[in-house]
């Protein structure tokens, strides 16, 4: 492994930490919005942030424990879960964050008018 790859792997961990902090802040803000304004967009955003965090956790951890033994023991349905579930979580999380943000923005617009 050449030094460029090592630098990128270290910075990759750093960037992942930044993204996780941002998603955590997003979830906190969404919960605060949902509690203080009673806006449904907030809880939608919080669910999206949780889904994105779960998918990211799996993607970060998967290279450390997924090997042939694990894949053999969970069977074909488990393998298709490991293939299909992370993109599904990523898509659903992104969709619900955007949907919740839209709902919150529309709610705010109605409130100010």
């Amino acid at each position, binding site marked *: 492994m050449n030094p460029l790859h090592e630098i*990128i792997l270290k910075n990759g961990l750093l960037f992942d930490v930044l993204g996780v902090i941002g998603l955590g802040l997003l979830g906190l803000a969404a919960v605060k919005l949902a509690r203080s304004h009673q806006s449904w967009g907030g809880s939608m955003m919080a669910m999206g942030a949780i889904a994105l965090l779960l998918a990211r956790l799996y993607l970060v951890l998967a290279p450390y424990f997924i090997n042939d033994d694990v894949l053999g023991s969970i069977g074909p349905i488990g393998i298709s879960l490991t293939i299909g579930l992370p993109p599904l979580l990523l898509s659903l999380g992104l969709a619900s964050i955007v949907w919740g943000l839209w709902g919150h923005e529309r709610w705010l617009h109605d409130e100010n008018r």
Partner: protein
Amino acid sequence: MSDGGFLALGSIAAVRPVFLIVMGVFLMLIAWRLAKTSGVWTARLLVAGALLLGFGYAVIMPLFAAGVIENYLPGRHYHGSAATVVAWHLVRMAVMNTGWLLFGLGLAMHAKIFSSPAPRPRAQARSYSPHESIT
């Protein structure tokens, strides 16, 4: 794909880039509308994060999802040059994670989670101390 038919919905190769583009554009649009009604730095953070995320979701991630850019995995051989793959990987990580960080910070400031909820009553409102006048 016989027993993963439902789960494969999230990763259909042809739909996913379009979905990502639509989501990125909507994210930028909604964040811009949300930023119009909030303070200066909140709006700056929100818009900066949403622009980064929009760029990431509308340009970079569809290229990855469509297979134009090869995915970076440690210890794999590439069809093209390895430096290009590594550089795109670095760009994607920087854009997406910085975007989420800035967007989360902006939304947190928009939701006012950094300001204390109400000024506490002063401590001198208490008129006695428990160590006094125990007779």
